[in-house]
């Protein structure tokens, strides 16, 4: 197996004990190990329902008809394979952090996720975006696809401003099958806009997972005295004394995080906060829990 920057052998070795099994069911076009919410042709009984015009008469449960003189269909859970759509924020703000930037951290996590999905014979797609979709890798499940994805991640650099909502809207027509939607970003965008953009995905039954990657310095400003803070995305400068900011800043960032978390909870969207100073593999532990 060739060595990739974001998929190191030791990580692959540790991921061997992980299995990507999202808690919610997603729909796949291939029958696989993942149960679909749609009724299908698997052997696992799911429910009865009254016959309607157009239903396959083979599905009528004649024993029930014999007892009740009504036509009921036996429905079975449809086992399908997973389409996992990965959105990795590649805006300039993701370049923040040292020694490991948020983009690096997100890339490690994304690479590991790709590996897990492909190992389960599921399909994975990848979108790199900032204020637009910079790269889109359609779903695939081959090793060559994984190779491409890794190349994509390695060649990726922080770009322009974060416009997650724009990227989500533009990507929506590209995703033809429902599945898991995993967004890895710092979410430095308008919260209302983000969740407005996610609404169509929810309506289509996507299982959405939000991973907010933040550097420790973003959660708690270090004491640096008077500084000219230069925005990585806009280049704007703000001169301020950290003594003044350190009292207000944690409240501001926590308010932002809380608004994202609450909005996600209201929409039953999974939300996970990741700090770049913690190993990314811990995120999989949280997913399995």
């Amino acid at each position: 197996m060739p060595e990739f920057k974001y998929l190191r052998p030791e990580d692959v070795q540790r991921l061997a004990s992980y299995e990507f099994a999202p808690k919610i069911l997603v729909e796949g076009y291939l029958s696989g190990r993942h149960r679909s919410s749609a009724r299908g042709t698997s052997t696992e009984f799911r429910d009865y329902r009254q016959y309607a015009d157009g239903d396959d008469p083979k599905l009528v449960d004649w024993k029930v008809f014999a007892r009740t003189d009504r036509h009921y269909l036996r429905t079975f859970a449809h086992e399908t394979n997973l389409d996992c759509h990965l959105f990795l924020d590649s805006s300039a703000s993701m370049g923040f952090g040292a020694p490991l930037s948020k983009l690096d951290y997100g890339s490690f996590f994304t690479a590991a996720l790709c590996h897990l999905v492909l190992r389960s014979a599921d399909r994975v797609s990848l979108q790199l975006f900032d204020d637009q979709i910079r790269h889109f890798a359609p779903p695939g499940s081959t090793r060559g696809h994984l190779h491409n994805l890794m190349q994509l991640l390695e060649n990726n650099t922080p770009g322009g401003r974060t416009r997650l909502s724009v990227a989500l809207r533009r990507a929506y027509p590209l995703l033809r099958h429902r599945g898991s939607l995993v967004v890895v970003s710092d979410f430095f965008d308008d919260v209302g806009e983000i969740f407005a953009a996610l609404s169509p995905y929810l309506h289509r039954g996507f299982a959405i997972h939000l991973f907010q990657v933040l550097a420790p310095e973003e959660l708690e400003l270090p004491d640096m005295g008077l500084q000219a803070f230069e925005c990585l995305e806009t280049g704007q400068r703000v001169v301020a004394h950290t003594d003044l900011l350190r009292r207000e800043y944690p409240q501001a960032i926590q308010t932002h995080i809380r608004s994202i978390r609450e909005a996600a909870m209201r929409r039953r969207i999974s939300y996970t906060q990741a700090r770049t100073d913690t190993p990314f593999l811990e995120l999989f532990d949280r997913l399995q829990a």
Partner: protein
Amino acid sequence: MNFVLTNAGLLPLAALLLVPLLVHLFARARPPVFRFSSVEFLRQILRKSVRLKRPQSLLVLLVRTLLCAALVVLFLKPVLFRAGRLGGAGTRKAVVLLVDATASMAAVEGTQTRFAAACAKGAEVLSELSGDDQANIIWLGSPNRAEFPRLSVNIPYLKQVLRSAAVTTEASDFGGALARAAEMLQGQPGAAEIYLISDFQSSTWGAQPLVALPGIAVHPIKIGRRDLGNLAVTALAVDPVNPLPGQEATVACEVHNFSTEHSLSTLFLRAGETPQTRELRLAPGQKQTVLFRVALTTPGEKAVTVALSEDSFPYDNERWTVLKVVEHLRVGLVEGEPQTSGYWRRALGALDWVKLETLATTQLGEFDGEALFLGGWTGDAVAVAQLCRYLERGGLVVWSPAADTPAAVVAALTARLAVPAPADPAAGSRAATGAADAGEPLRLEKLPRPLHLTVADPANPVFKVFADGLYGDPTRATFRGRAHLAAPAGGKAILNYEDGVPALAAFVDPGCLLLWNLPLQRELSDWAVQPEFLPFLGELLFHYRRQTADRRVQRFATGQSLTQEFEGEVLAEDVKLEFNGQPLAVRRQVANRRTVFSTTEARLPGLYSWYHRGALLERQAVNFPAVESDLSTQAEIKVGTQGLVALRGEQSIRQLQEGSPLWPQLLLLAVVGVVVEGLLLVWKDKP
């Protein structure tokens, strides 16, 4: 007010005022750049606090600018000149020092007298003058003395004079000194200045404003920092001043406590052989009159000295006067009506303390005795004029008008006016107010029934001796006739007839005229043979005799010139003046057949004795000026239109000359600026 920058060469330092502004601006642009993921949250925070922080920053900038300004100006050494003056640099000056050398300047404060401090201040003023400047010193005293008749450039001599000057015991004539100084400064080139160096006594300066002189800067410099307490003898009087041997005289002594505390002292009286003492306790500011009674038995001039216990200001603890005990009274008698004159002569001759002299009418102008009796005298215009002059000298005239005396003469003499001429009826009627008829003579009237006398003025001391009846009743006589004389205006009746007509009336001031309407003729009264007649006449003479003689001894004050006049030409070696046994130089002047000896000045208080050919001629008392005893000083005085000017004892001459340096205030401002900046920064960083 004017400002001068002493270090004007450092004026470019003013550019440093830009430092805080630049620091403020650069401090905002220079911080290290920290590339951050998003500054949106920071901007939100700053937007909240900028409303409060920006004024704080501006305030800090303002304080820092003020701080820098204070430091910069501090190095420029600004000097403030009051009243538009601009120091003495390059300006020619004409300066007159008015140095107070009066008695109060002898008070000791600390280790030196006020006068020594004043001389030191004067020397400071002179030290600041340059070679082209002119100066003079006028010593405030009585009289004021100038060192030079006009301004002089000989300033070293003036400094030497200040070192050797001595204080006097005199009062001052400040107005005259200021006028003289202004006269000296008139027309002088350059800045004209008067430095008034004084303790500014409250008694002298309390109500006296300092006149602002046009074109002349007057600088009052106060010497003396506090009000000193003092106990002083401020007045001494004797009554009568020329008693007879054995006659009791009253010595009235006024003692004043000028301190703010109670004073306990002893007052000593030395008059004659027996000294007297009196314990005194005076409240703060209290003035008390102490009476002593002395009776001197031997004739001659007697010194009367009162003294207080020693205190810190001893110059006014003693006071002197001279009591002239006369051996007898000189009484002149002008004989007119024989019986009246005869009775008076016999009665006056019986009094052993009376030296009777019979005078002709023509001798009236020369008589200088204590009393003059005119018995049945008619009078004329010349004699009335001479009598008026005698009365003005304080003499006593006892006049029994003759029956043919014109009423106008009576009216003129009682009113101290000249007898009017017949052609001037208006003046005659004015002078003869109250007379029966201005032009008609008096007439003798027979009384329808005998009349006795009544006492018109029971409080009169003449009747004191008759109070216990030992000397009879002076009203017991019986009168069967009297002069028809209406009571002239201005008189005070001593005795009246039973019908209310005045029998004896006194017309006083100046002198005393006793209008005697008590006929002594045997057919008209038995008054002259009554035993009360002699004591009554004696009491009358005793109490109404001339009292004003020799009172001039009490008018001498320190600094005045003492004089002695002689008729004719007197040789210089015949007259001597001594003070405390030491002979003093006297000047001799002969004019109008009179020889006048005088001293230059009597500087010290005490008794001065004149001798003529070795015999004591007269003692003259010179006393400390009472106005100088109050050692309290004024805190401020009124100067012309400038209102009240505070007098500061600590005021430096150099400060007056060179202005007030402002560096202490600027330094204080800078320190306050640092403190305020610190407080502002603490407030600014407070959440």
